């Protein structure tokens, strides 16, 4: 029998993974280093990465490489332009020859306690959805034989990733779902189908936003033409009851360029801002708040060239698109890290993607560095600055109560309570947590006509709690949760950075 070897390429038995690893002899034990406490060996942390071969296909939907269209400027300290990206410069290691991710240990770690199923917001409202335990370990086992298709129900998973947080055994559920969804889309989904086209459009939001942002007023007016959204529903299956978000007349990057980049320079206190698409095209006020708050604390802010974090692409199984964007992001962020920066995201899904999904799904040189250096904006300040001291005794000019919703993706990073705790001692602020339910939109999920109803049923609990709460302004870190909060209650919704900007007078 072929034994598992240290460099991990000794899997001579085919796609079934290193069978020798769970060995039955003492040999398997002696080389096992002390596992990190709380992180079972079978957890995602030790998983080798998937390699989705990038066959160089250039999609019609590929955004123009020159970021000039979005006011693109180089980062304050330089940084290479993504147009120079040379795939040959990378050294992707194809760990599993079939491009297959070995998830056996993850499947073995599942002891079927079903905690994941009780945490699933979709299964709670839709009994036709078989739940994360099936989508993850059970489906993975089923398809070992090779003659089983991926069950179509994988497309009903909203990728909220709450199951990751619920699993006491650290089964990499969302990684399994991402892999299965990617496989479903790749091999079972009709590429000319309306659903595929619609999902491709939704997950490549950045591309369309970059075009719309050239003519923001026209684009905003177009989505408000009576019947325009209904037409979108008929033609593309995009939920017609939703209001399309407005595009900013000046993107964040245009603003950044206009102000002349960073106003504070300090080579010892640098952060690279990953603004993501939404703060750039739709809510630049969040990005501006980030810059002002960080400069208030003496940080030099860099704004490297960047593309989509990949979150909507993972959720739609568009792994090739996600990988292409990841290559640009990793290249530019690694460079910033080399210049002493940590990476800061204001969107909790962007930060989760860079931290968790990137190293789980892709093997790109430097991707682990990006993962280890990425933080959410408020989290980073709470770790590195005396935020409580700074905020103690501050007072908000106009008293305001907020109904705060913690995004599911914040939950997975241990951030679900940070806004409530941070602003607890600010005079004039009442911050009420509206509970642990999911908002239901999950990025692109609630934008799909056939998922709209499920999305709103999931969100119902949050809407009720928001209406019961004292505040009439919503607060959350996630832009799509914010859309849902606004859609369900009509409240205006802010990002914690905007409140922090007011509180510290940045």
């Amino acid at each position: 029998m072929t034994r598992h070897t240290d460099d991990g390429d000794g899997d001579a038995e085919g796609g079934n993974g290193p069978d020798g690893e769970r060995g039955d002899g003492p040999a398997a034990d002696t080389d096992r280093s002390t596992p990190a406490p709380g992180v079972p060996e079978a957890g995602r942390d030790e998983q080798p990465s998937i390699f989705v071969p990038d066959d160089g296909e250039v999609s019609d939907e590929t955004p123009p490489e020159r970021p000039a269209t979005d006011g693109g400027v180089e980062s304050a300290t330089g940084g290479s332009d993504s147009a120079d990206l040379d795939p040959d410069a990378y050294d992707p290691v194809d760990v599993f020859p079939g491009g297959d991710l070995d998830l056996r240990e993850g499947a073995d770690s599942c002891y079927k306690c079903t905690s994941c199923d009780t945490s699933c917001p979709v299964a709670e409202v839709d009994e036709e959805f078989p739940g994360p335990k099936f989508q993850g370990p059970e489906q993975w086992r089923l398809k070992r034989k090779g003659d089983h298709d991926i069950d179509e129900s994988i497309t009903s998973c909203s990728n909220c990733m709450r199951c990751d947080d619920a699993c006491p055994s650290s089964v990499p559920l969302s990684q399994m779902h991402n892999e299965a969804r990617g496989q479903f889309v790749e091999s079972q989904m009709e590429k000319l189908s309306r659903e595929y086209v619609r999902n491709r459009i939704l997950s490549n939001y950045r591309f369309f936003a970059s075009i719309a942002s050239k003519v923001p007023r026209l684009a905003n007016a177009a989505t408000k033409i009576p019947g325009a959204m209904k037409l979108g529903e008929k033609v593309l299956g995009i939920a017609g009851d939703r209001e399309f978000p407005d595009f900013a007349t000046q993107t964040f990057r245009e603003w950044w360029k206009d102000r002349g980049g960073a106003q504070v320079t300090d080579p010892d206190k640098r952060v690279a801002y990953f603004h993501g698409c939404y703060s750039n095209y739709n809510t630049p006020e969040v990005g501006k708040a980030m810059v002002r708050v960080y400069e208030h604390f003496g940080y030099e802010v860099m704004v490297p060239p960047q593309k989509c974090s990949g979150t909507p692409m993972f959720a739609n199984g568009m792994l090739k698109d996600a990988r292409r964007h990841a290559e640009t992001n990793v290249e530019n962020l690694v460079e910033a890290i080399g210049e002493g920066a940590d990476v800061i995201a204001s969107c909790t899904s962007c930060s989760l993607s860079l931290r968790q999904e990137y190293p789980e799904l892709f093997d790109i040189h430097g991707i682990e560095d990006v993962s280890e250096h990425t933080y959410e904006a408020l989290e980073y300040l709470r770790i590195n600055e005396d935020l409580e001291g700074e905020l103690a005794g501050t007072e908000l000019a106009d008293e305001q109560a907020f109904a705060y919703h913690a995004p599911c993706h914040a939950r997975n990073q241990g951030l679900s309570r940070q806004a409530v705790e941070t602003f607890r001692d600010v005079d004039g602020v009442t911050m009420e947590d509206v509970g642990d339910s999911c908002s239901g939109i999950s990025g692109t999920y609630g934008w799909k006509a056939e998922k709209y109803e499920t999305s709103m049923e999931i969100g119902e609990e949050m809407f009720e709690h928001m209406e019961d709460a004292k505040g009439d302004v919503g607060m959350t870190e996630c832009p799509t949760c914010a859309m849902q909060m606004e859609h369900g209650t009509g409240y205006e919704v802010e990002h914690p950075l905007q409140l922090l900007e007011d509180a510290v007078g940045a």
Partner: protein
Amino acid sequence: MAIDSDVLVVGGGLAAITSAVAAAREGADVRLVAHKSSTLRQASGLIDALGYVPATEPAKPLREGPPTAGRKLDRDEWPDPEGPLADPFEAIDRLPETHPYRVLGADALREGLELFDDLAGDAYRGGHTDRNALLPTYGGSVKPTARYPAAAEAGLASDDRPTLIIGFRSITEYDARAFAGRLEAAGVPFDVAGAEVEFAEAFRADTKVTRFAKALDHDEAIDGVPAREALAKAVGPHLHDVVDEAGGVDRVERVGFPALLGDDRGDEVRAELSDRLGADVFEIPMGPPSLPGLRLEDRLYDALDAEGVRFETGNPVVGIETAANGSVETVAVDRKGRETPYGADAFVLATGGLVGKGLDSDRDGVRERAFGLRVEQPADRYEWFVDDAFGDQPYARFGVRIDGDGRVLDADGVPEYDNVFAAGGVVGGADAAREKSASGVSLATGIVAGRQAATEATQ
């Protein structure tokens, strides 16, 4: 800069919450850090204190030599455990000396239960007496427990009113008729019948309990009929199923269901069903996934918030830094690959035992994961267990050892660090599964560790 607090509690279950609240009530600034969502969702929702005193000595000397791997040669013989106990407190003296109840004293258990009563409020019953209650469980047995959800109250086994047990074919936890038969065989003082009804069949077979609960919470239409009404209609024809000893037919006075009768609006769901059926309605606590456990989790985390405790879940504690004087200064929290120091003046370790993964084991040994504290264990792993699966398994009592203040001890029996306390399943000495003492040990160790940590931190 580290994230600082007076007391840092590591863990997210009953012991962690108890110690966090106890410390906060002593005036400490408390933070709780848990790796995952609370495992309370796997718990039955019953709060056991002490149901049995199991034998620690076999009936005859154990056979020498290696385990027999189930071959039936010269089997172990163990006396039956003492119990079910009517009064958990009077039996504490008969537990082994190293049991947490013996180490901390009966008052710790009493005060822990009082704190629980305060936090659980009207959602729980049993606080009026020291004595155990007897509740039917989904296995069809009757279990001694100290506190139980209000939703389970009408199901007490000491009640003599005729009872109907309802089951659904698609919910496989129990078969209602077999369940009723087992209760009768156990000698319960009431007449009982089981009936399987059509209701859950409107959903697909692997529907989650949370889905049923939501449908009943919102009284969603099932084939055009509101869910609560549909369920009551399905049960109606069986209200006269109970036959007494004389062959007479009794109308049942109470009806038991699997524990899925609503989540946020459970009281409302039970009240409406009860009204429609003209009988009291109760839930039968189930194994995981457990709605009573989820409800308790929600209630206790709300209590944490109300007590001003800061908490976060999602990232594990993976190590410690000690100060020059030998006390622990910070713990390292692994935030997706980057270790962040969390400082505190005192720490409570409440990460759970072998099932909760506070302890880890392999062929070489048993370890405590977060702080690397000593776990007493025989060097030869063949001595970790005995042949009889239901015997006095040494591994069941593995865990860290504490002193009367909850401080963790080293091999010489002195505190390993002066500011590290432990609570719950990570503390050794109890055989919680056989004793039915898991929650009580969490409450007793939790309240002591929390108070002492607060004292250590604020002195």
